[in-house]
């Protein structure tokens, strides 16, 4: 089989001859062109997603005060952040909530820091011989602190189930407001634009892959948490519900609040919209086939969030979901997205331009991800 290497593709990028398409453009092309023709014609396909990703956060180093303090309890604008690392390091988790306002939390702190806003820091420590100060109250900005390193343990889910609610009460969930009697159903991936659906076997994405993260260049750090390769797949290798995930990292000081946005889901809590773009190299005909995937070929499972066990009620595909109505056991159910296709398109387009402008080069993964993983669940003792 004919092949291209990442090195060859990067050479084309530097020579200005690389052909780069967005995943939507290549899916359209795939309707009339064979995978061979797409392989011959296209070098890179840009994929993207902009959805709420709760498992996100940033490490921050505030810098030392004089005299110094070993911060053991920290709040930022009254949002408690994790202080159990060294003296002036902390982790701001996106879903941490303000003590006074449940609609405000870590996601907002992250967005505001990135936007350059001032944040109120309060910290306490017990006082030690080397860190005598016990309390501090001050304000910080992204320019006043040392580092803000985004590290999101679980982002960019490969597929996600559709949520509906067969119970007789409205459910307020991280999948949005679900009205009783399966009146509506919400879905949350960008379909044919979604990164891990364009490389379903994760051949080109691994540890060290350079990506677009929140407006800056970031990296895939590891497989994400709850990484699961054993979900059933359809004939196009698409897992039929949530499967692989990515842990991603990048310099939050370089990011833009356009691509990192705090969210609050009623009676659920705070989350964070994260913009991720991943370039997929068209290495061979199989990859060409994978990136040509279309919404109607991407199936997903419909779960009932009205029942705590979330039983599966059926399957559908993204072409149906995007029409605004699916049929579920004879019932017509109104559908709505949770992730922004508009923003995902913007990111895929931006990444394409960065590659064409020679600002973004592709990387060979330093290591590939584990292949046979499944999930453990938590045992209960009482």
């Amino acid at each position: 089989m004919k092949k291209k290497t990442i090195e060859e593709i990067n050479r084309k990028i530097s020579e200005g001859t690389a052909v780069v398409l967005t995943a939507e453009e290549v899916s359209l092309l795939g309707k009339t062109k064979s995978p061979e023709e797409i392989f011959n014609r296209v070098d890179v396909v840009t994929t993207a997603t902009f959805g709420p990703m709760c498992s996100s956060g940033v490490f921050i180093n505030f810098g030392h005060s004089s005299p110094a303090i070993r911060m053991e309890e920290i709040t930022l604008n009254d949002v408690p952040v994790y202080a159990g690392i060294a003296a002036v390091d902390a982790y701001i988790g996106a879903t941490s909530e303000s003590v006074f306002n449940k609609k405000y939390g870590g996601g907002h702190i992250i967005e505001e820091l990135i936007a350059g806003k001032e944040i109120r820091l309060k910290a306490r420590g017990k006082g030690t011989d080397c860190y005598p100060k016990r309390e501090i109250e001050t304000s910080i900005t992204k320019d006043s602190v040392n580092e803000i390193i985004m590290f999101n343990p679980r982002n960019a889910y490969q597929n996600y189930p559709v949520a509906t609610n067969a119970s007789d009460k409205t459910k307020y969930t991280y999948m949005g407001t679900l009205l009783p009697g399966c009146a509506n159903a919400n879905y949350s991936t960008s379909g044919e634009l979604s990164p891990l659906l364009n490389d379903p076997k994760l051949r080109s994405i691994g540890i060290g892959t350079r990506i677009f993260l929140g407006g800056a260049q970031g990296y895939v750090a590891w497989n994400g948490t709850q990484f699961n390769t054993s979900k059933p797949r359809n004939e196009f290798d698409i897992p039929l519900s949530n499967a692989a995930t990515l842990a991603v990292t990048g310099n939050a000081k370089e990011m833009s609040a356009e691509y990192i946005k705090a969210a609050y889901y009623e009676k659920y809590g705070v989350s964070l919209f994260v913009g991720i773009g991943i370039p997929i190299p068209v290495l061979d005909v199989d990859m060409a086939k994978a990136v040509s995937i279309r919404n109607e070929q991407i199936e997903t499972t419909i779960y009932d969030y009205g029942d705590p066990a979330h039983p599966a009620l059926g399957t559908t595909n993204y072409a149906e979901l995007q029409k605004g109505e699916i049929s579920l056991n004879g019932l017509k159910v109104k559908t709505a997205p949770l992730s922004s296709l508009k923003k995902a398109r913007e990111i895929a387009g931006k990444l394409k331009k960065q590659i064409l402008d020679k600002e973004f080069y592709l990387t060979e993964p330093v290591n590939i991800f584990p292949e046979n993983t499944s999930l453990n669940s938590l045992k209960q003792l009482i």
Partner: protein
Amino acid sequence: MNTRYSISFPPEKIKKPIISELIRNFSLEINILNADVSSGKTGKLVVEIFGKEQNLLNGLSFLNEEGIFYRQIQKELIVNINDCIACGSCTGVCFSGALKMSETFNVLELNSSLCVLCGICIKACPLQLISLNSNGKIV
């Protein structure tokens, strides 16, 4: 002319066919946008009334005589479109069709004339961009 009113029925008036009398005796056309009526409690209707101005005024004085409270609604649904990321979450709960994604999913479209002011979308927006403006004044 057509205008929106919020009408509150005291518990003892709930059984009276007020709306059909308004329609029949005052040549008004009434479109019920939202109803919250359960016996024993104050009932509330949100209606849109179409008809000649004089008929409307007569109808309203009839409501007064019957001891039924009404208030002209000047509330309107406001969406802060500048900050909208077009995620689409709000459209899933809007059954009147007032909030819709454009065909390409690139913009949220609000058609205020279809909005029945149910308010469900307010809680469905993760960026909290939707509100009802509250300068509804008592007439």
